[in-house]
């Protein structure tokens, strides 16, 4: 097998943010289902949380290409 083990590290680092983003949007969907008029407010909070959680996965892919 050929390849770069750093990409495996990226796969590992994507697990946490994947779960986190899932939880964030699950909560967002729950919130909108219970209170549809709060959609606008919840949306920006959900996207903010998504961006913060996603940062970790982005670190992973940046570092996978840096330490090759």
């Amino acid at each position: 097998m050929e390849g770069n083990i750093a990409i495996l590290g990226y796969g590992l680092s994507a697990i946490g943010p994947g779960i986190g983003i899932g939880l964030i949007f699950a909560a967002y969907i729950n919130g909108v289902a219970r209170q549809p008029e709060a959609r606008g407010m919840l949306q920006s909070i959900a996207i903010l949380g998504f961006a913060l959680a996603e940062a970790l996965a982005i670190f992973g892919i940046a570092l996978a290409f840096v330490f090759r």
Partner: protein
Amino acid sequence: MSLRLLAAAGESYETPDSGLFWQPLFGSGAFAVTRPAVVILLSVALIAWLLVAGTKRLAVVPGRKQMAVEAVYGLVRNSVARDIIGSREFLRYVPLLFTLFSLILVNNLFGVIPPVQYPTMSRIGFPIALTLVVYVIYHVMGVRRKGLGGYLGGLVPSGLPKSIVWYVWILEFLTAFVIQPVTLALRLFGNMFAGHLILVLFITGAEYMLLHGDIGLKVVSIPTFLMAFVLTIFELLVEFLQAYVFTMLAATYIASSLAAEH
């Protein structure tokens, strides 16, 4: 499995890597005029033309261009700037946020628009430059508002036990001065870089399988092309979302450095 098949087919397939993004047009070394530099100039010209054309003959019942410009401006002004910074002082920051949003949005969309097809922000220098602007502005505005001592002291929320204040202060200082700007730049860069790499991988991979593979690989290349199409649509969504997220986080950082208490 497919790798072994490809190897058996004779010439090997080169997976795209980060070298793909280094495309000097003329010149060499650090001062080369590269493709993203040309793309960002093109985007500036396009945005200027759109804004001038969209606002030249303002009408109460807007035409199509005016409608589009107003929709984008309204999004940034109302649902980003006003909601996050607060209705008292958001107007000063609307020009900055609108510039950031429109510049990033057009440059990101260039990643999939055929004649250009290069996301400028996949070169780390461009997000770093935008982040530096935001970084300087939110710290300078915070220091102007509260004074240097007040700004640095205000990083810690009040009401903490005395013994852990210094510890929380170090964490908050690192967050505001290192982690926030680094993640802001890396998020935009990483999304554009990874997204473009995936598109190139799928499209060149499918092309290779179609032209150089045996009959099995030729069949497999059809779903690969379909997947490339689906990912292009997904990439459009990500490109819009990242422009929005960058603008929103910039507004959030400005709001948090202006806030009376952390």
